[in-house]
């Protein structure tokens, strides 16, 4: 390894002004990362609203009576597994392997859909027993927070379909693999938000 390469590896020996432009993938990743952080700030605001309002049940159903922990554990498992299969999928994209991209991303899609079905069944059960968003401030905050997360998952699944169509029609062009990279970031970030949801909303309810 030459001295210049070593300097590039360590990164601090070359002054910033001499390093040249960052690779497009790094720049695109940074831009998307900024979007994700702003999205997480939205969720932060919804978490703050939930934390303030979670005791205001207005005589209606309370958190401890509504939430089933086993249900949440299955939802969490779906989302976590889909995060890992999405990671395997992005490795397949990186090595331009079409069939294993389809395979891993199809599993990611199925797990995401399973998560959504579980969430919708929970919501419809709550609506059927009269615990809808209009019942109390606590339930409004709950449906807003968890519903926004579910909406993000839905958008992510639509994005995944579009990406698979792009792989089928355009192949693994740099542009397509960059978009896939951003999709992976989005999907993993949703999983991070879900950690907050199950800890604060569902596990916090049983304390």
């Amino acid at each position: 390894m030459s001295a210049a390469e070593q300097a590039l590896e360590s990164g601090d020996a070359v002054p910033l002004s001499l390093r040249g432009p960052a690779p497009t993938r790094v720049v695109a990743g940074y831009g998307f990362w900024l979007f994700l952080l702003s999205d997480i700030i939205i969720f932060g605001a919804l978490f703050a609203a939930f934390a303030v309002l979670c005791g205001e049940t207005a005589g209606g159903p309370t958190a401890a009576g509504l939430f089933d922990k086993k249900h949440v554990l299955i939802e969490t498992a779906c989302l976590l597994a889909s995060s890992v299969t999405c990671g395997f999928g992005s490795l397949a994209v990186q090595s331009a392997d079409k069939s294993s991209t389809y395979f891993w991303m199809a599993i990611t899609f199925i797990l995401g859909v399973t998560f959504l079905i579980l969430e919708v069944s929970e919501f419809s059960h709550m609506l059927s027993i009269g615990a809808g968003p209009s019942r109390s401030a606590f339930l409004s905050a709950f449906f807003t927070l968890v519903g926004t997360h579910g909406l993000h998952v839905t958008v992510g699944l639509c994005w995944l379909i579009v990406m698979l169509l792009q792989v089928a029609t355009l192949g693994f062009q740099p542009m397509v693999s960059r978009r896939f990279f951003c999709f992976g970031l989005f999907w993993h970030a949703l999983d991070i938000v879900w950690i907050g949801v199950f800890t604060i909303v569902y596990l916090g309810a049983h304390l």
Partner: protein
Amino acid sequence: MSTGIEAQGVAPGVDVQTHGTRRSYLVGLGYAVILTLASFWASSSDLIYSPGIPILLGVLAIAQMGVHLVFFLHISSAPDQTNNVLALAFGVFVVGLLVFGSMIIMAHLNHNMMPMDRLIQMQR
């Protein structure tokens, strides 16, 4: 960066390693599963001093977020990640202000507010 097209937009001598390996995803999965099960177990455990459980849940959640950031989102101390780490620090700062600020302010307002029945009496 093997293909010719892929080299477009890449500075010479720079090899971008933004993806992990299959092994790093599995290690991350292992940690995440352990931390998730630990927090589900802790939330209904009789073994732990009960006022300490919320703190334990918080610690487990933050640890799992860290695991996800490192093993799934590949945030690291690499030179091409400096901007990402700085942006993350700012994001965490804003979220902290937002969440804890709201909670403190609302708790104070709640504390200072007259009880609702007396408020209704005054309006008569």
